[in-house]
């Protein structure tokens, strides 16, 4: 049964997925089993994206489907304990930039891959990044920016994290429209990624190290 859900999610069959979940809930299937099936489907979607058979709309649409699934099972899940996460990530679009689409996909993919994501939103000040890192004791920071103005805002954020004495505690990744290795060096971040799947891979490598 879970296999069917995995497959339906991986094939982005929204209506069939939701019908399936409704039926499963009716039959008192363990909500964790549903959630795990959905996550497994998401892994396949991630793999297909990495290998170039799935694209941005597939990722965003899968996020929409997953959201509906979670909405349905959330009331049932609340009775269960919290899930152990792989690590904590502080995420946000840097000061001056209000673009959220890329950042949201990165947050969503990190989340379904087992990270506890603290998403600060867009146009995030350096102080707010520093405050959140302190508060959560996160080990990964992900800075997003679509415009070239983000180059300096990212650098300022990395500098502020260092000034706050937190640089040794965190690994920092940057990403977005015009970010490349040249810009990565300018910002002082540890790595840059071209898409959400690369973000997950970077985080996994850092956590494993």
């Amino acid at each position, binding site marked *: 049964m879970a296999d069917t859900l995995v497959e339906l999610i991986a094939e*982005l069959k*929204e209506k069939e997925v939701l019908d399936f979940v409704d039926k499963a809930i009716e039959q008192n299937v363990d909500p964790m089993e549903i959630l795990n099936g959905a996550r497994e489907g998401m892994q396949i979607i991630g793999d297909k994206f990495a290998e170039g*058979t*799935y*694209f*941005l*709309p*597939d990722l*965003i*649409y899968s996020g*929409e489907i997953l959201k509906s699934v979670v909405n349905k099972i959330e009331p049932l899940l609340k009775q269960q304990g919290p899930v152990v996460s792989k690590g904590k990530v502080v995420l946000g679009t840097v*000061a*001056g*930039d*209000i*673009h959220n*689409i890329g950042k949201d996909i990165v947050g969503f993919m990190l989340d379904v891959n087992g990270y506890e994501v603290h998403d600060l939103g867009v*146009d995030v000040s350096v102080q707010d990044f520093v405050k959140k890192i302190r508060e959560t004791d996160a080990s990964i920071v992900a800075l997003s920016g679509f*415009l*070239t*103005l983000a*180059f*300096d805002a990212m650098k300022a954020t990395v500098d502020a994290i260092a000034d706050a004495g937190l640089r040794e505690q965190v690994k920092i990744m940057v990403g977005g*429209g*015009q*970010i*490349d290795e*040249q*810009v990565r*060096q*300018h910002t002082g971040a540890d790595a840059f990624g071209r*898409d959400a799947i690369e973000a997950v891979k970077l985080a996994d490598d850092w956590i494993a190290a």
Partner: protein
Amino acid sequence: MTTTPWEEKSVEERRQIRFEKWLNPESISFASESVRSEYQQRVQRVIDAIELKKTPDRVPTLSPAGLLPCFLYDRSCRDAMYDIDLAIELWERFAREYPADLTKIPGTMGIGNALEILDYGLYKWPGFGLPDNVGFQATELETMKVEDYRILVEDPTDMWLRRQIPRSFGALEALSGLPSLTHLVEIPQVRMLAAFGRPEVAGALKKLIRAGEELLESNRKLGVLTQKLIGEVGTTLSAGGGAKAPFDVLADTLRGTNQMMFDMYRHKEKIEEAVDRITPLQINAGVSGVNASGNPLVFIPLHKGADGFMSDEQFSQLYWPSLKDLIDGLVAEGCVPFLFAEGGYNSRLDYLNELANGTTLWLFDQTDMAEAKQKVGKNVCIAGNVPSGLMITGSADQVDDYCRKLIDECAPGGGYILAAGVIIDEGKADTTRSMMDAAMKYGNY
């Protein structure tokens, strides 16, 4: 001179008439014969690159100016956004100090007051929801609901007038209460115009008039700048008109990116119908700009069809057919579509070979230029792609090196214009100089 009416002229004849007008603009008085000749040389250089019939005298250049003039001359973007005289002063100075064959005017600057009067919600800009030193940014507002697809197809003007515009402009919200104007057919329906007397509608119209007066003056000043750039500086503008890929009109202007991506799964047929309805509207938009300016270049910024933004199957079904119709429609009118492929276009290059030879110009951002040259360089003129990262954070030597390699790869045989991959905002004087000089140093044929 032939006197055949426009409708009976061939596409080639139409294009040549437009090129002739571009080379000899009627409304411009040149400061001297040498400025006229410099202007004509620049235009001819660009025409030669586009037509692919012969190599130009050297590689033409496209101005990298986004907000660069503000940053180079240390004025805030907010000030330029609200003061057209300042914007004009900065852009004119930039055009004189960093001469390019294709030059930019501050088309989106100096309109802050009008945008505020209208309470435009589709964007935020420096001084309104954004810090002072950044560019305008889209808010991804959903200005057309999914149930409005039908109205878009039946009557796009009604969709815009009573839905898209009231939802985009806070000050014009009351226009949503107007009746459909096509109901006005006979004396009995005249009564429906009572809607214009409602205080909220009258208030919206008053604001529209105020914004219109602001823009009229701003446009007049931009017109004077254009005359100067052509008649005194001897350069031409990088666009005479503008249009958008029909899919991008839906995604950027009407539905918002996220909603559009859901529509690609839930309402594919609606998208197909809608883009076909939008295509002729965008052809008209491009042609009317060209008719008014005398410059045949129609700038078309491409957004949602880039590498990774959709599958090849989605591109071939939902994005490309209407974009190709738009390009073909503009070419048929003698215009030159100037497409800006932001992001990567590596996976879409083969499509460009479906276009008529020597009729379009493609500016690439992160596309592999050597591959572009090899795959489509014999069919379309290519331009690009000095990275913004290099221009903003690199050294003059690095930029020089990058441009030399670019010219080596892309210039042979003509059909190449040196340009930055995207417009440059927070740039530097030395890297900008280095890029503009590279065409003179390495670009002579």
